[in-house]
C-alpha cells in the first residue's frame, strides 16, 4: 500500500506538471480576421465604432454630459485642449474585436495631433498617427507608426471617417459609425 501511495505522489507531480505544460492558462477568444485583398492594391481590413453605443469614455474639458456619467476630467488648463476617447472596436461582422483610444490635442510644441491606438487582445496593438487636416470627402488619413505582435512587422496607411446613420431608419438611437480602414503590408526586408 505504501508503494501505491508513493506511486500516487509521483503520478500527482507528473500530472500537475503535464497539465500546466499542456493546458493553456490563457486562451484569448478570437474572431476571424476580415481582411479584403484588392487586385493590385494590397489588402485592407475595416473596423468600426458604433456611436454612441461603443463609446467607453469621452474625456474633454467643460462637457455638458460627461461620458461615462460622473467622469471627472482633470481641471488643469494644460488639458483644456485635449480630447481623449476610448471605444470598443468591431470588425466587418459587427463583432467586438478590441478596444481603441483616440487622442486629439493641440499645443505649441506638438501642434495639432490626432492619434489612435487599436488594441486587439488576440492579435496585438497598432499605434497610428493621423494627419490633422481631413481630406476632401471628410476622411482623414494616417500612418501605422508602430505595431506590436501581429502588427510589429507591418507598415501602411489608415483612414478614418464618420459615417452618419440614416436617421429616418434608425431604431437604436445610433448617430452613425466611425469607420477605420487599415491597409497594412509586410515591411520590405533587405536581401541577405
Amino acid at each position, binding site marked *: 500500500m505504501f508503494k501505491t501511495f508513493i506511486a500516487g505522489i509521483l503520478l500527482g507531480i507528473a500530472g500537475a506538471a503535464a497539465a500546466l505544460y499542456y493546458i493553456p*492558462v490563457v486562451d484569448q477568444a478570437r474572431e476571424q480576421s476580415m481582411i479584403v485583398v484588392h487586385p493590385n492594391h494590397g489588402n485592407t481590413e475595416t473596423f468600426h465604432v458604433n456611436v454612441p453605443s461603443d463609446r467607453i469614455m469621452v474625456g474633454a474639458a467643460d462637457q455638458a454630459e460627461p461620458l*461615462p456619467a460622473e467622469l471627472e476630467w482633470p481641471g488643469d488648463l494644460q488639458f483644456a485642449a485635449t480630447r481623449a476617447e*476610448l471605444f470598443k472596436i468591431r470588425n466587418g461582422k459587427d463583432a467586438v474585436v478590441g478596444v481603441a483610444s483616440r487622442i486629439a490635442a493641440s499645443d505649441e510644441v506638438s501642434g495639432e495631433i490626432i*492619434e489612435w491606438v487599436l488594441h*486587439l487582445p488576440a492579435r496585438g496593438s497598432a*499605434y497610428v498617427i493621423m494627419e490633422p487636416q481631413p481630406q476632401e470627402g471628410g476622411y482623414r488619413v494616417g500612418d501605422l507608426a508602430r505595431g506590436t505582435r501581429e502588427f510589429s512587422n507591418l507598415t501602411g496607411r489608415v483612414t478614418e471617417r464618420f459615417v452618419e446613420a440614416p436617421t429616418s431608419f434608425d431604431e437604436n438611437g445610433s448617430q452613425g459609425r466611425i469607420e477605420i480602414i487599415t491597409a497594412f503590408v509586410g515591411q520590405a526586408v533587405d536581401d541577405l
Partner: protein
Amino acid sequence: MRYLVALLLGLAVGVAAFLALLYFNPMTTRNHLSPLSVSDNQVITFNYSAVATDAIVYTNDGESQVIPHPAKVLQLWEPTVRRSDALATVLRDGRNAPAAIGIKFSSDSERTNVLNGEAIVDSVWHVYAPGQGTLFVEQRENYWDFLRDIMIPARWSSGDNWRGNWNGSITSGPGALGTSRVFGGSGIFAGIETDAVESLSAKAYSVEFGPVAMDAELAIEIPRRDASLSQDP
C-alpha cells in the same frame, strides 16, 4: 479499496507538493532592480495611483475583482475583450504635478507559463503630455511576484487582505534587458525609440476590492540627441 485510497491520497499529496514547489521556487524570483537605474541618460518618470477609483476611467469585464470606475462606465464583457482592461488616468511628474494623460490597455497573455513563474500581461500605453508630445509604450508585464507576494498571502489571511511594503518592477519585456519599448509620436518625443520600466509600490491589498493603496511609476529613458555627432575640440 485501500489501494485506491492510497493512490488518491498520493495523487493529492503529489499535486500539492508540486504546487508548493512552484510557489516557493526561488529560481522564479526576479531581480527588482530597474535596468534604467544604471542609465547615463535622462529618465523621466510618470507616477499614478494604481487604485481604480483614483483613475479617470477604469473598466474591465465587470465580474472581476476590481470594480469598474465610474460605476456606469461601459464594461468589456464581449468574449474577445473579456480578459482585457482599459485605464485612463492622470500621470504626474516627479514633483507630483499633473503632467500627462495616460491610457493603458492590458490583456492576459497567452504566453503565460506558470511552470516558469510567468503570469504575463500584454499592455500598451498611449501617453499625451501637453507641451511635450506623445508616446507609445509596448510592454510585457510579469505579475508572478505580485501574485506570490501579495495576492496569495491576502487570500490566506484571515482578514482577506494584505498590508506591507512591496516594491517591484512588473516590466519583463519585450526589450532584451526586460524593459518595455517606447516610441515617440510627436513633439519633443517625435521619432525617439527608447526603453521604459513600470514598477509598483503596494501598501495594501484587499481580496474583495483589489489594490487599496498602490502607486505605480512609469520610468522612460530619454536618449541624448546628437550626442554622438559632436566632435571633440
